[in-house]
């Protein structure tokens, strides 16, 4: 409880920016504050949100995962391949998608820990490998004809989109896990000072492997959700998704040097990016200026946040 409060206070600047942007949008447009639109925002951030939560684990261990986008595509394609109507029960394509992601994460983790190769290189390699595999598996064409059971994964449940429920569940579980599990504490320790953690008896390699594998699993989930949403396994989907996800995490106060950061922060980062994207579209800002404004708001938000948390 204490830690949560401290954290919200810590990220107060960011919260302020989000509220400010939200307020400006409510004034500038009639639609921003409508239930329908806020549901939209929630729906749109859910994929980036799931990825961001996953990559938070990796960043906390002072690693990085650049393969998110490609693995989203690969998992989506893998899932779609098994999702043709009447072929398998719906659990099969979902499991295939999740396991594909987890397998990629596991390979990343193994290369980082056993191979001793820098995470940047490993996951950059995985980025091109997974993209290549997605294209090979699908023959370069979208894998269509998915069963309704699977695409229903993107529908609403009691008025809330299922992707949003997934995201919420994932975020809550991750938050709970990092706070209350021994392994969660170990993740912070490994990222904070790997050698010291090892000397203190933390199984550093296993902890890192876990972080990459979990990130992969969640990336697989994002792939399945995306495939359900766009009703195809798209081999060229997810371009540059890793940048948005990592940006959200870093905006939320997680250090790329590892050991510092929270899921609450990540959620705020995801929210900021989502609100900007939605708001600029609602305002009808031209694409060219959208890019400029988005960049300025993100840098500005982080600048304000850091200024406030320093004082």
């Amino acid at each position, binding site marked *: 409880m204490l830690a949560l409060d401290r954290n919200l206070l810590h990220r107060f600047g960011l919260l302020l920016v989000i509220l400010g942007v939200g307020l400006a949008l409510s004034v500038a447009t009639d639609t921003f504050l409508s239930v329908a639109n806020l549901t939209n925002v929630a729906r749109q951030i859910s994929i980036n949100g799931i990825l961001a939560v996953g990559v938070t684990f990796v960043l906390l261990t002072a690693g990085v995962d650049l393969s998110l986008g490609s693995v989203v595509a690969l998992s989506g394609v893998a899932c779609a391949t098994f999702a043709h109507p009447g072929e398998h029960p719906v659990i099969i394509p979902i499991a295939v998608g999740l396991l594909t992601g987890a397998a990629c994460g596991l390979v990343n983790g193994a290369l980082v820990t056993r191979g001793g190769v820098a995470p940047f290189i490993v996951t950059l390699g995985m980025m091109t490998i997974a993209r290549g595999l997605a294209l090979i598996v699908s023959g370069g064409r979208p894998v269509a004809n998915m069963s309704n059971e699977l695409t229903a994964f993107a529908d609403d449940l009691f008025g809330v989109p299922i992707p949003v429920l997934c995201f919420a569940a994932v975020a809550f579980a991750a938050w709970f896990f990092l706070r*209350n599990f*021994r392994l969660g*504490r*170990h993740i912070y320790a490994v990222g904070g*000072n790997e050698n*010291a953690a090892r000397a203190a*008896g933390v*199984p550093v390699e296993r902890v890192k492997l876990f972080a990459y594998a979990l990130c992969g699993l969640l990336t697989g989930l994002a792939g399945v959700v995306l495939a359900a949403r766009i009703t195809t396994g798209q081999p060229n989907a997810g371009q540059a998704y890793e940048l948005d996800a990592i940006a959200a995490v870093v905006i939320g106060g997680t250090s790329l040097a590892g*050991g*510092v950061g929270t899921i609450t922060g990540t959620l705020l980062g995801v929210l900021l990016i989502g609100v900007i994207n939605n708001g600029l579209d609602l305002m009808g800002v031209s694409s060219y200026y959208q890019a400029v404004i988005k960049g300025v708001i993100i840098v500005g938000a982080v600048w304000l946040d850091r200024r406030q948390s320093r004082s």
Partner: protein
Amino acid sequence: MLRALELRKDFGGLTVLHPTSVEFRPGEVHALMGENGAGKSTLMKVLAGLYRPDGGHVEWRGNKVAFGSPHDALVAGIAMIHQELMPIPDLTVAENITLGHEPCVSLGRIDRAAQLRLADKLLLELEADIAPDRLMRTLTVAQTQVVEIAKALGRQADVILMDEPTAALSDHEVAALFRAIARLKARGVAVVYTTHKMEEVFKLADRVSVLRDGRLVGSAPAAELSPAKLITMMVGRDLSDVYPARPKPSADILLEVDGLTREPAYREISFRIHRGEVVALAGLMGAGRTEIASAIYGLQPAASGQIRLRGQPISVRSPRDALAAGIGMVTEDRKGLGLIPALGVGQNITLTALREFCYGPMLNHTAEVAAQQAQMAGFSIKASSPAQPIGQLSGGNQQKALLSRCLLTGPELIILDEPTRGIDIGAKAEIYALIQRLAHAGKAILLISSELPEVLALAHRIVVLRRGSVAATLDATQTDQETVLRHAMPL
């Protein structure tokens, strides 16, 4: 020459240094004394331009100055040796020593020959045998400390602030440093010196100022002080009997080390430790003490040789293996192998023994916090709360937290590599008592310390190392400093 006038420093609303005024004169060694967390380092960092004061100001040669950065202070002629070692690991020793004032040929092009010459000269002055073209990351902690000293000496400053420069040094280097300080004094340099080693104060200092809880308690010429009086000023009470009596070891052998070898660091190392016994590894800097301890703890396994615990051969490939076997260690490299700086003090303390405060894989926060508070109270660790990041604590308090982390797992063999480094005299006494209590409880202790008096007073037996080989095994109660040193010196 340099005066602090009503200097005050706050950290997050907490006043760490209350308005303090001190004066430092040319050609004088001014010792700054106080318990851990008293504010000595903070005061020095303000003087060196690393922190900006929240009140008062610094007066330099009669003028009010406000240093915006260490650069300004260095330009003015104030250099500092930091308590926290600050190597740039992938530059050479010479580059580290000349950092920030590299000799240049023209247009900022470095004169490498002059750079090496300068580094060589400074290292020679400190009688250290370190090649200036070695990479900093290959140095031991003690060698790193020597480089830090050389770095400050090379500045040709008028004031040198030395924050526990000898914490990681053994006698030989300390003596060299003292000779260097004498030369500085003769040149009219003002030296501000912080240490927790009592005898150094009386050997060196002309004046002593004592801080307690961020306040100046008093300032007096060293000649007017006695150790007892000084301790009372620092601690606020008397401290008799720093070294407690040694309990008698049992006949039970806990640890046997047989023929441990990892060239070129050490070879054919054999010794044993009984339950209830304190065995010290002594030797000069770089003799291989840390490496042997690291081998037993699994940080850097030996190439050959056997380790037997309770008569059973054990294979220790990692600290996890060692911990599982009941071996705990406090490492010498506090920053590199000890602290997780961003985690709270409490979480640092419970890190190794975390399993004890869990239901299955889940943490029991109540039990954990209770243990953290108990440990912090037991070791009198000064921090605003268990959640304060350990990186913000004073050096001594960090050390105590790491000691507490090690003991919380209840190891049977405890390896202590320089456990009292940077620890104040009061806390030292507590740690000495603790060591003997642990021995009394039947634990075996392997102690490494560069302070020979400490070794002689605490250990039952001393294994003296010389360049990676056992030179002698001495009965601590029957020997003296000279004998130990004679065995430790290279022939």
